């Protein structure tokens, strides 16, 4: 079972690939929209890439709740627990 930091690091890699944000900037307290400049279409890409990477399903109606990197990491942790 992956640690919180491992999930964050993998997610940071995805955000870097899609939005070009340095992986080190993708920290748990950062907001995707306000801090990382991930727009709504890129957020869909991040979600789909995360589903593939972590083998989870992130329903569309959950995506709006994933405001910060920490929200996403928690969701993935719970879904894979």
């Amino acid at each position, binding site marked *: 079972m992956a640690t919180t930091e491992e999930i964050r690091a993998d997610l940071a890699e995805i955000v870097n690939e899609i939005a070009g944000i340095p992986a080190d900037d993708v920290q748990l307290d950062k907001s995707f929209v306000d801090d990382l400049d991930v727009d709504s279409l890129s957020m869909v890409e991040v979600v789909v890439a995360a*589903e593939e990477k972590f083998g989870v399903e992130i329903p569309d109606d959950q995506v709006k709740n994933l405001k910060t990197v920490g929200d996403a990491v928690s969701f993935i942790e719970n879904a894979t627990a």
Partner: protein
Amino acid sequence: MPLKRVVITGLGATSPVGGDVPSTWSALLEGRSGVTALTDDWAEPLAARIAAKVAVEPGEVLDRVKARRMDRSTQLAMVAAEEAWADAKLDDAVDPERLAVAVASGIGGVTTLLANYDSLLEKGPRRVSPLAIPMLMPNSPAATIGLRIGAKAGVHTPVSACASGNEAIALGIDLIRLGRADVVVVGGTEAAVHALPMAAFGQMMALSKRNDDPEAASRPWDKGRDGFVLGEGAAVMVLESAEHAAARGAEVYAEAAGAGITSDSHDIAQPDPAGLGATRAMKRALIESELAATDIAHINAHATSTPQGDVAEAAAIRNALGAAADGTVLTSTKSMTGHLLGGAGALESVATVLALHHRVIPPTINLDDPEDIGLDIADKPRDLPAGDLAALNNSFGFGGHNVAVAFRSA
């Protein structure tokens, strides 16, 4: 009221023979072909396995994150637009509400469409990119350029198959003449070197099958021609009202004097065999430009290297210019670049403008056994005389579109 004069103050290109305007122009003058054999697995079953891919991959030039949000046709257009925009030195020198874009594509984001269809079939709808629509829509190159330069006077995408690039230039001239903009970034782009478009053009018997000798495959007016070679690339020009350019002391390459647009109303794919629509387009361009047939020193012909088209165009040139056709020198730069479809008119207009600017016509290569078309074709670079000169660039497209653009030396 006399029509406003429109001048060209910036040029950009990424083509099968060069990644920018200077390298493209020197390759054209050297007579260098950009056609190569396709070694990809997908090309193997095709009858025509040659194409003119761009000399410099757009990914080498563009920011990676921005590029991944663009179809290849938009990537190429952006490379050309960045060069043209920098060349025109217009940053902060034009009111955004007086700045427009008219950039065309013949097919649009076809490789994005097909790649997403592959994802849909293989992995399901959840794997279709949320960026697919903004990437594949044919107006994406124009819209992306408009966003980059902050154009607020309208962003346009004329679509008329292989005449699209020229039609975008014609539209840009109109926008300035109608007072709707002071500056219009115009051009065309295409990136369709993919199995499906190549199979489809192949089924129309339109492509050259000279697979064993790619550089000799595009041979306009040569008796051995057997079809066109699909090319990719983009070219962009900055059109500006002469007053606006003069007020800021801009360097001017040439004048975009006017255009003629006609339609054959004959057939969806075959050109009118008598070339009447093409003839009328050239005549209209002369009238609108207030040029006489004897002013036309040079024509960059559509001449794609198809058995019928090249000869029909030659007849149309004779009909349009009459006896003055004897005094004009033709070339087809497609002999080197292949046929860029919606990018063709733009790239060839850049070549036409540079021919007037540098006073030299790039050659038509592979003209070993020319058809007797009764017109003078430059098979080597041909110097143009000093003084006031004009030139035409022709583009014709499936659907019966004919667009001739006239340029006057600055």
